[in-house]
């Protein structure tokens, strides 16, 4: 068999498409929710890490470091399969969202921190000298500048979360990639995997380009 029959087999792809689309829907649902929650959580964590009282700061650092180090697969298994032993029984969707959110917020926290630290000290001083309280200092002055700086890595992180939904199949949430490997096994042909890659690219490229446009408009100031 040649490369086309093996990796770009049209009938196999057409066969697999309905499965892939079913997986895509899970990927999007789970991914979008975890990205949004992860960004919010990450921002909170970054602020705790930078400005919290010592013990809060310690907790934030531990949270960030441990949940970046732990493999998502293991976290998912613990949340979904171990928690019932202590009486917490989550649905697979909740468990997957929770695990993805925890991990993505740990990553996002470090990104936001780098952005906040890149805002010149003079900006904080000017805001404080004007009497702005912590909330407005962050909201009006520091975060708009910090977020502008970190748009590229935040985009990367969001893409990562979307792709990490693949691991949710371990808690019986078959996402796009899982559906593709399954279709591969059924047909004994890797074409569905290539199909999934194409779908990922079709899904992500426009989003990434859109972010780039926003970024440019931002930068023009």
């Amino acid at each position, binding site marked *: 068999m040649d490369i086309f029959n093996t990796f770009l087999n049209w009938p196999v792809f057409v066969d697999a498409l309905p499965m892939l689309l079913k997986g895509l829907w899970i990927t999007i649902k789970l991914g979008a929710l975890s990205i949004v929650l992860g960004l919010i959580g990450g921002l909170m964590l970054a602020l705790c890490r930078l400005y919290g009282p010592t013990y809060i700061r310690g907790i934030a650092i531990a949270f960030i470091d441990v949940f970046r180090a732990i493999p998502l697969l293991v976290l998912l298994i613990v949340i979904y399969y171990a928690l019932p032993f202590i009486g917490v029984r989550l649905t697979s969707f909740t468990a997957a969202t929770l695990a993805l959110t925890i991990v993505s917020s740990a990553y996002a926290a470090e990104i936001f921190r780098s952005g906040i630290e890149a805002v010149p000290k003079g900006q904080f001083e000017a805001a404080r000298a004007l009497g702005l*309280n912590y909330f407005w200092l962050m909201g009006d002055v520091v975060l708009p500048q910090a977020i502008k700086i970190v748009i590229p890595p935040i985009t990367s992180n969001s893409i990562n979360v979307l792709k990490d939904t693949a691991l949710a199949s371990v808690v019986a949430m078959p996402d796009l990639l899982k559906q593709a490997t399954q279709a591969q096994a059924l047909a004994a042909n890797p074409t569905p995997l290539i199909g999934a890659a194409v779908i990922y690219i079709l899904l992500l490229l426009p989003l990434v380009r859109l972010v780039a446009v926003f970024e440019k408009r931002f930068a023009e*100031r």
Partner: protein
Amino acid sequence: MVQNIIEIKGVEKRFGKFTAITDINLDIAKGEVVVVIGPSGSGKSTLARCINLLESYDEGDILVAGVRVENGANLSAVRADVGMVFQGFNLFPNMSILRNVALAPVRVRGLSWREAEQRAMKLLERVNIAAQAQKYPSQLSGGQQQRVAIARALAMEPEVLLFDEPTSALDPEMVGEVLDVMKSLAQDGVTMIVVTHEMGFARQVADRVVFMENGRIVEEGSPDEIFSNPKDPRLKTFLESILSH
């Protein structure tokens, strides 16, 4: 009893092992204009920054309107009453000039955006820059930025104004205008601490001139005493070097 709006008692500030200012004692009455002069690195900026706790001081006390300046609940309120114009301009690059000026009145004083922006426009007119209100800071020249910074501090109508070389980036024409604004503020009874090299301004407006060297206040007195009859030898050399060029 005359209330001193600012009382500074035995203040010292160290950066690591380096002592930037030490043994600073200075009381400033309401409505007084104090000009701080001294050579580069003598601690003028550091002193100004300690007054609104942008630098925490290591020894002594600073009181603004009787309240000790320290970390805590009332720090924000103290700061809202102490306006500051920076040596670097520190405008907010993510908002228009108009927003820069209107922001604090809205966020701290609770004005509506409409009202705050109207007042901001008036201040921008006063420093001759109203035409640029919708531009962003990066689009302005250095002098224009400095004038915005002054308008921003004035917008809070503070009780005390700290100026750290407010005219250093201005061209002479503008220096005159800005000094006029400051003079009128002085007449309105606003308390001011001005770090400046504008000896003309010091002579005309200052109630008191403070000369710093090596982190200490070496001499203080009325402009007449300082300029016409300096006692400290270092002050004498300092003044001579200024007049020589």
